[in-house]
C-alpha cells in the first residue's frame, strides 16, 4: 500500500473524521490519498486558518484536531497556530510536507527546516526518515497530543517517503519510555489538601484551562459545593464552573472582577486547579496573595512552583484528583459555618464592585452592551469564539459561560486572527450548536479569507465584529499609560464589512441601534449560512476594571 494510504488508515484508526488543510507540491501524494479516503477534508484559504480551525475543533469537541500543510511556506504559515496550541495546551496534530530526502538541507525548492523552526513550540515532533516509521509515528503523535498536558505535535514527511510502497500493519502499541504522564494524584497529598481545606477560613478555588482539558468541570462544581467554596476562573478556565452559580466570583486577573482579585488577595488558602499563575493573573508577583497557602493541582510537574511556591503540590489529572479530594473532604465533616465571615466579606465586595459600565443615553451601542445583547439573544447557550483585544475581555466579562467548551479563545499567545477560523472549526465539530465569533475590526482582518471556506462549505458561523475603528486594546494602553499618544491604532473606515461579507458569499449586516439590538442579533442568528455583522460601537471605551501592568492585584483601577 502507498505510505500515504497508510496515513489515511492511521487517521481513521485514530477516529479522525475531519481535517483542515491546503495542498502543495510536497504533500501532493497525501492529497491524492484524500481523494477517495473517505475522510472529510476542509479546504482552507490560508494554512493559518487551517491550524486555528483544527484548534477550534479540538477545543469545542475535546478531540484531537488535525491540520495539513505543504513544505516551506505552507509549514511556516502554521507556525502561529502551533505556537498558539502550545500556549493553550490544545491537542492538534500538524502534518507538514517536506522536500525529498536527497534535497534536505540543500535549500531545495520550498524547503524550510520545519522541525527546527517549530522545535521550541511543539509538545513533540517527528521527522520521518523512513516510510515504515509512519504508522507508529502517527499513533504516537495522537497519543502525545491528547494525553497528559495536551499540546501540538508535528509530523514532517519528506515527499519521496510518502510515495513509498509499504506493507501496512495497524500499529496499536505506543512505545514512549520517556513519556509517562502522572494521572492519579498522590493519595497522601490529597488527604493533606483536604485537611488544609477543612481548616481554611478564607479559601478560594482558582481554576484554569486544565479543568476544561481534563473534562473536570462537573467534578469542580461538585467539589466547590461540598462546602461553600468560592470559585474564580482564569480566562482559559471560563465555563469550567457555571458563570451563573451563586459561588461564582467572576474571572480573575488583569481584567477580572474586583471581587475575584480581592478574594485572592485576602485568601488564606488557594486551590489552583489546572492553572499556571500567569503574569496576567498574579499582577505584581511579590505582592500576590501574600496571606495564602497554595494547593496546586496540575498534570504538568513543571508548572508546580514555577511562579508561586506550592505548599501542597498534587500532580495528576484534575478529574481524578478532584474526585478523590471530594471523598476525602466529605469524610472530614468540616464545619461550614467557619466560612460565614468570608462570605460576608465577599458579598460586600460583590455589592460594592459589580462589573459595570455607563450605558449610552441614546441609541449608541456600548461594547459591553453588545455582549450582553448576544448573551440575551442566545439564551447564554451559544458556543462563543473570540479574537484578541478589548472585545475578548468584554466577552469574557459579560457572557456568563455555564458550560465547558462553550468559550473558545486564544489566551496564552493572544493571537489576533484566531477567532474566525477557530469558530469555523468549532462549528464543524459541533454542527448543531449556534457558534458565534465575536471579533474586532482589527482581528477579523487577520484571517478573513476563511469566510470563503465557510461559504463554500456551508459552515453557518455568525460573526459579530465589535467595530470601534481602532486597535482598541492598544489604544487603551496608549491612552492610559502613554499620555494619549495614539500611535498607529486608528483603523480608518475601510473595509466595508457588509460588502466584503457579501463578496465572500456570506450575509452581511450592519447594526447601529442599541434599542433593536437583541432582536436584530436574534434575526442574524436565525439567518441560514454564515453571517457577518458589523456592529458599530462606542469608539473610545476602556476595558475595566484593570490591574495596571506591574501593579498589585488589590490596586485595580477603573
Amino acid at each position, binding site marked *: 500500500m502507498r505510505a500515504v494510504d497508510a496515513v489515511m488508515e492511521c487517521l481513521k484508526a485514530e477516529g479522525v473524521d475531519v481535517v483542515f488543510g491546503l495542498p502543495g507540491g510536497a504533500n501532493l501524494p497525501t492529497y491524492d490519498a484524500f481523494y477517495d479516503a473517505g475522510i472529510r477534508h476542509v479546504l482552507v484559504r490560508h494554512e493559518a486558518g487551517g491550524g486555528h480551525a483544527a484548534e477550534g475543533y479540538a477545543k469545542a469537541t475535546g478531540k484531537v484536531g488535525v491540520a495539513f500543510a505543504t513544505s516551506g511556506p505552507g509549514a511556516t504559515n502554521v507556525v502561529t497556530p502551533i505556537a498558539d496550541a502550545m500556549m493553550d495546551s490544545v491537542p492538534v496534530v500538524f502534518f507538514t510536507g517536506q522536500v525529498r530526502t536527497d534535497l534536505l538541507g540543500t535549500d531545495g525548492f520550498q524547503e524550510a527546516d520545519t522541525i527546527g523552526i517549530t*522545535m521550541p513550540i511543539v*509538545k513533540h515532533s517527528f*521527522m520521518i*526518515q523512513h516510510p515504515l516509521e509512519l504508522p507508529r509515528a502517527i499513533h504516537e503523535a495522537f497519543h502525545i497530543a491528547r494525553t497528559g498536558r495536551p499540546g501540538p505535535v508535528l509530523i514532517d514527511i519528506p515527499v519521496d517517503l510518502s510515495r513509498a510502497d509499504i506493507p501496512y500493519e495497524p500499529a496499536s502499541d505506543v512505545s514512549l519510555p*520517556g513519556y509517562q504522564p502522572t494521572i492519579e494524584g498522590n493519595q497522601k497529598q490529597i488527604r493533606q489538601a483536604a485537611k488544609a481545606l477543612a481548616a481554611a477560613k478564607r479559601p478560594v478555588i482558582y481554576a484554569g484551562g486544565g479543568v476544561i482539558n481534563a473534562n473536570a468541570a462537573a467534578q469542580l462544581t461538585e467539589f466547590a459545593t461540598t462546602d461553600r467554596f468560592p470559585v474564580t476562573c482564569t480566562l482559559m478556565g471560563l465555563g469550567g464552573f457555571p458563570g451563573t452559580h451563586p459561588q461564582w466570583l467572576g474571572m480573575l486577573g488583569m481584567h477580572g472582577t474586583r471581587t475575584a482579585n480581592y478574594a485572592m488577595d485576602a485568601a488564606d488558602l488557594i486551590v489552583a486547579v489546572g492553572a499556571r499563575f500567569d503574569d496576567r493573573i498574579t499582577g505584581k508577583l511579590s505582592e500576590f496573595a501574600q496571606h495564602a497557602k497554595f494547593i496546586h493541582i496540575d498534570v504538568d510537574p*513543571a508548572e508546580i512552583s*514555577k511562579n508561586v511556591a506550592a505548599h501542597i503540590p498534587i500532580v495528576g489529572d484534575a478529574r481524578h484528583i478532584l474526585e478523590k479530594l471530594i471523598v476525602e473532604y466529605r469524610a472530614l465533616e468540616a464545619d461550614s459555618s467557619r466560612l460565614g465571615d468570608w462570605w460576608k466579606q465577599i458579598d460586600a465586595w460583590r455589592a460594592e464592585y459589580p462589573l459595570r459600565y455607563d450605558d449610552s443615553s441614546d441609541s449608541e451601542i456600548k461594547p459591553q452592551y453588545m455582549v450582553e445583547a448576544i448573551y440575551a439573544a442566545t439564551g447564554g447557550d451559544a458556543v462563543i469564539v473570540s479574537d484578541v483585544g478589548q472585545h475578548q475581555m468584554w466577552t469574557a466579562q459579560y457572557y456568563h459561560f455555564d458550560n465547558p467548551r462553550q468559550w473558545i479563545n486564544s489566551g496564552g499567545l493572544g493571537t489576533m486572527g484566531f477567532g474566525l477560523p477557530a469558530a469555523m472549526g468549532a462549528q464543524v465539530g459541533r454542527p448543531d450548536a449556534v457558534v458565534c465569533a465575536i471579533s474586532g475590526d482589527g482581528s477579523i482582518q487577520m484571517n478573513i479569507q476563511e469566510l470563503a471556506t465557510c461559504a463554500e462549505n456551508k459552515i453557518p458561523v455568525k460573526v459579530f465584529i465589535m467595530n470601534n475603528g481602532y486597535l482598541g486594546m492598544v489604544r487603551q*494602553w496608549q491612552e492610559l499609560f*502613554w499620555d494619549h499618544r495614539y500611535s498607529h491604532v486608528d483603523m480608518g473606515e475601510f473595509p466595508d464589512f457588509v460588502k466584503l461579507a457579501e463578496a465572500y458569499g456570506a450575509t452581511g449586516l450592519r447594526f447601529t441601534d442599541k434599542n433593536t439590538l437583541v432582536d436584530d442579533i436574534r434575526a442574524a442568528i436565525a439567518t441560514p449560512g454564515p453571517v457577518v455583522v458589523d456592529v458599530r460601537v462606542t469608539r473610545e471605551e476602556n476595558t475595566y476594571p484593570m490591574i495596571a*501592568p506591574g501593579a498589585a492585584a488589590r490596586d485595580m483601577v477603573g
Partner: protein
Amino acid sequence: MGEPGTKELLSLEELDAAVGLRTGRKHVLSILVENKSGVLTRIAGLFARRGFNIETLTVGPTEDEQIARITLTVDGALHPIDQVTKQLHKLINVLKIRDLEPAATVTRQLALFKIAAEGTARSELLEFCEVFRGHVVDVTKRSVVIEITGAEEKIEAFAQVARPYGLIEMMRTGEIAMGRGRGET
C-alpha cells in the same frame, strides 16, 4: 497586550535584578536520552531559550545502543536552573535526569596541551607531567603534546603550570560524571 505597559525608563540595574533564584554552585546534569536525531538540539534549545550558557557538554553511547548519555555542566551561580531541569523532563525523548551532587560524584575531563618547552625547560616540564600523572603523546624538536585526565581543577592547575613553558594550544573535552558507590547514575 505585551509589555511594557509603562513608559518609565528602566535602569540597567533594574534589568539585572529581574532574574530568578540561583543555587550558587556548579551543576552536573547527567541525562539519559533515546538515541535519536534531534535530541541534542531539543535539549540545547531549552537552555538557549532562557539565555543559559552550557559550560561543558559530552555526548556518548551507553551500554544500551538505544540510549545515549548527555552530561552537561551549567553554572548555578549564573543561572537559575531548577525550571530548566523540569522542562527537560518534559521532552519526550528524555528518559532520566540526575542533577549530580559534586561531593558524591566522580568527574573526569581529558585535555591535550601543546607546549613549546624548548631546551632545558623541557625536562622540567616533563617532571610536572609526571606529578600530574600525564602522558606525553607527541614529541617534536619544537613541541611536546601532553595528555592530562582528571577533574576540572586538576586540568586547570596543569594549565597554570604549562603556560610559562610556551603553551601553544590547549583542547579540553566536556566532563563525564559518575555517581560514587554502587547505585547507577
